[in-house]
């Protein structure tokens, strides 16, 4: 597509930024010549081999980057958001760590050395960057602070933060939803506030973008070059279409008519032939045959439901979606020899069903309940409740995805009602980046949201990772939200 001069520059600048994944020819000094000695001397007595408080070891590069029981201590390239540095710097109302534990605070020189090591990528002695290459990343939109947390699924830590404000976008860019290429080579994020869908590579560099009004949820066709974009609420009258984008060059090829206002819920059949969408304003959904453009309109009878999102079974293409207002779950049978798509059954799924997901085998459906701070797991054989998942970190759950291997389930939580008490409350008025919070950007929330890692087999909450403000959409190479 044609790029405006401003965005050509933006992409160029992005490409020239300190590479988020690449190893530079002349890397800065490595761990042992910078942060290592300081951490060993000042921190390892509590965070070392003999004693590893909070599960954190700072006596090695590997330990420092592995983080603690609760998540990362350092985020490569992002000193401002690195918890260890925020504590060491005495941010907010906290006394600087480790002086709060009775030890002398870090000197300014020590702090600066640590800060620079992180800002330059937190490299090892060979100059290699942590968390690069063909790893399994989970991407989480922090809608309230114009950033995306890139989480290493296996390590359970924030491996990078893509801060769009540092790439020339406004603080209200509102990243909303993410999908990821099956091979992990690229990921796509909708920015509501600027009307763009960005394409970023594995190294988190913007490589292209498409303009489309009020982009909302995304759906990626793994079998073809198509990306579909629904509409967000951020307009009085958004288009009644779903944008169809050719991913290879990010050209908006057409706007698929879905007939009704505010098309929000969005998913694809596993073979990519049928697009499902539903309205936030009417009890209507559509199943669009993408080859012919033929649409089957589905009436979602009853009181006002307000369907938020769909998920499609990877096995038989059955689609399920939930009504925000009623808690009614709709099961839609895909088109087949017997006829077009149809609503096969409905059942109660109270608690505010939100973005939902099938597992990779189509044997379970995981439905976050936004108003109840839990996940309800259904058996699609008979739609009985197979399990419920509740516990720490579930606070206005929003998006849900699986890790590539299906072992982990990741759930983003906006913490809109402050149900989750963060380990360190740096106080209202500041977010993770130290940025002043704009009133109204985060709902009721004055605290960051969470990403909860759950053992998919047992339903046990494994880890609560604190991330940015108002985490919403989430994407992965596993079964993504909405498919």
């Amino acid at each position, binding site marked *: 597509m044609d790029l405006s001069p401003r965005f050509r520059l933006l992409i160029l600048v992005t490409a020239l930024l300190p590479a988020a994944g690449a190893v530079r020819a002349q890397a800065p000094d490595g761990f042992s010549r910078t942060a290592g000695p300081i951490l060993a001397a000042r921190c390892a007595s509590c965070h070392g081999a003999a004693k590893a408080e909070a599960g954190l070891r700072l006596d090695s590069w590997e330990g420092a980057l592995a983080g603690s029981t609760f998540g990362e201590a350092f985020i490569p390239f992002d000193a401002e958001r690195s918890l260890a540095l925020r504590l060491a710097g005495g941010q907010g109302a906290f006394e600087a760590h480790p002086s709060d534990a009775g030890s002398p605070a870090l000197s300014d020189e020590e702090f600066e050395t640590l800060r620079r090591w992180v800002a330059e990528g937190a490299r090892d002695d060979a100059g290699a960057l942590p968390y690069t290459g063909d790893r399994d990343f989970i991407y989480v939109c922090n809608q309230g602070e114009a950033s995306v947390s890139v989480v290493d699924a296996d390590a359970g830590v924030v491996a990078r933060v893509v801060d769009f404000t540092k790439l020339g976008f406004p603080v209200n860019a509102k990243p909303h939803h993410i999908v990821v290429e099956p091979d992990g080579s690229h990921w796509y994020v909708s920015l509501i506030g600027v009307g763009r869908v960005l394409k970023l590579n594995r190294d988190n560099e913007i490589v292209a973008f498409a303009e489309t009004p009020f982009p909302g949820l995304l759906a990626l066709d793994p079998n073809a070059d198509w990306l579909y974009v629904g509409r967000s609420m951020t307009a009085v009258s958004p288009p009644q279409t779903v944008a169809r984008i050719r991913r290879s060059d990010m050209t908006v090829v057409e706007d698929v008519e879905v007939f009704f206002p505010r098309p929000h819920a969005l998913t694809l059949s596993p073979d990519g032939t049928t697009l499902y969408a539903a309205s936030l304003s009417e009890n209507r959904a559509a199943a669009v045959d993408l080859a012919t453009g033929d649409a089957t309109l589905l009436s979602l009878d009853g009181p006002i439901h307000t369907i938020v999102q769909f998920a499609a079974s990877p096995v038989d293409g059955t689609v399920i979606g939930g009504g925000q207002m009623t808690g009614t779950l709709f099961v839609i049978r895909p088109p087949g020899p017997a006829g077009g798509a149809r609503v096969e059954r409905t059942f109660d799924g109270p608690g*505010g069903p939100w973005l939902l997901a099938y597992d990779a085998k189509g044997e379970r459906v995981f439905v976050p309940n936004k108003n109840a701070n839990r996940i309800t797991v259904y058996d699609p054989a008979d739609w009985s409740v197979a399990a419920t998942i509740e516990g720490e970190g579930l606070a206005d759950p929003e998006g849900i995805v699986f890790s590539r291997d299906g072992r982990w389930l990741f759930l983003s939580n906006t913490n809109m009602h402050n149900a989750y008490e963060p380990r360190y409350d740096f106080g209202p008025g500041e977010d993770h980046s130290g940025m002043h919070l704009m009133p109204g950007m985060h709902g009721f929330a004055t605290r960051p949201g969470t990403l909860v890692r759950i053992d998919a087999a047992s339903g046990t909450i494994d880890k609560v990772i604190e991330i940015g403000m108002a985490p919403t959409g989430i994407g992965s190479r596993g079964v993504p939200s909405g498919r």
Partner: protein
Amino acid sequence: MRIAALLLALALSACAAGLDGGASAPGVPGADARIARPARSVEEFGRALVRRVAPFPVTDPDGKPVREPFLGGFNVPRPQFADIDGDGDHDLFVQEVAGRVGFFERTDAGLEFTWRTDRFADLEVGEWYRFVDLDDDGDLDLVAEQLFSHIRAYRNVGDARSARFELAVDTLRDVTGRPIFSDRQNIPNLVDIDCDGRLDLFLGQITGTVVRYEAAGTDAGGIPRFEFVTDRWEDIEIVGMMASRHGANTLSFGDVEGDGDLDLFWGDFFEPGVLLIRNRGTCEAPDFRGEPEPFPVGDPLLTSGYNAPAPADLDGDGDLDMAVGVLGGAFNSNRSIVDNLYLLRQGTTWSVETGRLLATIDVGSDSVPRAVDLDGDGDLDLVVGNKIDPDRNETGSLRVFRNVGTATRPALVEEVPWRPAESFHPSPAFGDLDADGTPDFLLGRWNRHTDRWAGVEGAAGRGVAERFREVAAPYVELTRGSNSSPALADLDADGDLDLVVGEASGTLNLYRNEGTAQAPRFALVSDEWNGWRLGRRAVPAFGDLDGDGDLDLLVGTDLQGVLVFENVGTAQEASYEPRGALPIPAPVLAAPALGDFDADGDLDLVVGGMPGGLLYFENAGVR
């Protein structure tokens, strides 16, 4: 014939400006002493078009006159009253589309508002606007959305009687220098809530809470600097646990109780009515901690939700009245695509006076007009398709406006809706497909199908539903696509009608009639005619725009207006060259129809669009 038409055009054009008292489109000159002549090129055709909002009488199905029938319709009207001309009454402003505000001047002691412009003062307003005296100089300034989700301010550098606006601040900032954020779907407001002489800025949140800022000094130009006060003003929380990122709201203030302090009105995406939160305190010490009440209390207004209240004492009786624009929330927004600008008046009780404060032709949304002499009386009637019938959620309909006037002095009467097929987006194309002298039509549907209907001979005096019978459904099927919009025209001068079908993707499909005038047989020539991709929602219409004896082409589009294609070939072998868009204020999803409505020998233009109404452009010739 050409000479006769020219003379007629000359005679009529001399008094064109006086026919209806209607205003011209911005930039189009009004009456001119020079004599007009017909357009000789498609460019001149564009320049010859003059917008009229009331070119001839129109009455609704109940026999009531429609005062300004060609306003274009409303789907998401955002009203506000303001005395912009200092004449002591409330003028009406209505925003229908992003970026501009329409102005309707109060023109009598009753509640008569007269259209002046769709783009007041050329102000760029984003998704919302509010008139307010920011600099306390006695005239109204303006605040509006700065893309995206920030606030801009215009200063009125004219005076209370003659407003003239200059951009004062492109991004309103708080006293610390940080931009003030206002989610663009939430329409804020500014009042002095505590009578301390300082403006307060209120921003509704998607969670149903209210952020308050208060003016704390001014900049060098007198524009207030606002200081953040609270993000939970008066602990108001409208939607509570239903809070999500899918909300939207509007808020406004008025003294509903007449007790000297301002009360709060709230419209919400998840609320079918307007909520009133009474000020239980005083002007100096407001208290809004009571429960929200559906308004009017006891007999609340119920719509599809996301209502935009605009309170004002409209009848000068000392109490508050209110207009309510319905933007369409979670409660089936299709319910409100016609009745969406309510007037509520306060007497001994509150009553809903009308759902159409501005009476105009409005068939719902996505209107597609066609001009045809349906009843064979020698004048043009008007048939308008819509997307979906406001009264029946499962189908669209055709609205017939029968011409009960004459060919030179039309007068349209709207008949009851006609639903020839259970289909959304019925889009007709009229023509005599069997050479029997009665009009037949093809009916495009919202999908790939186009049906064929035949006129019934000898049925001219009957109701419209009895004048036609279905012949084939579907009759023509696109290879791919939706929103079939057919147009019939003899493109090779062989005496039969050929067919062009526009579709949602913006392409045109050409079908050559390989049959006869009596028995058409449409054969697909191209499903991407001329390789054109015209944005989205192509709606074709043919007519000889430049008077050279062949058929030129207009194509309505979603965002590019009405595109012109000049026939640079011949009547026998049409060949089209693009000539840009007509210089008219076309709506989104523009759908053109050509017809000589005043029988002056040239083609006038009617344009439908997303708001569901019609725009009328008289061909006044060129000078």
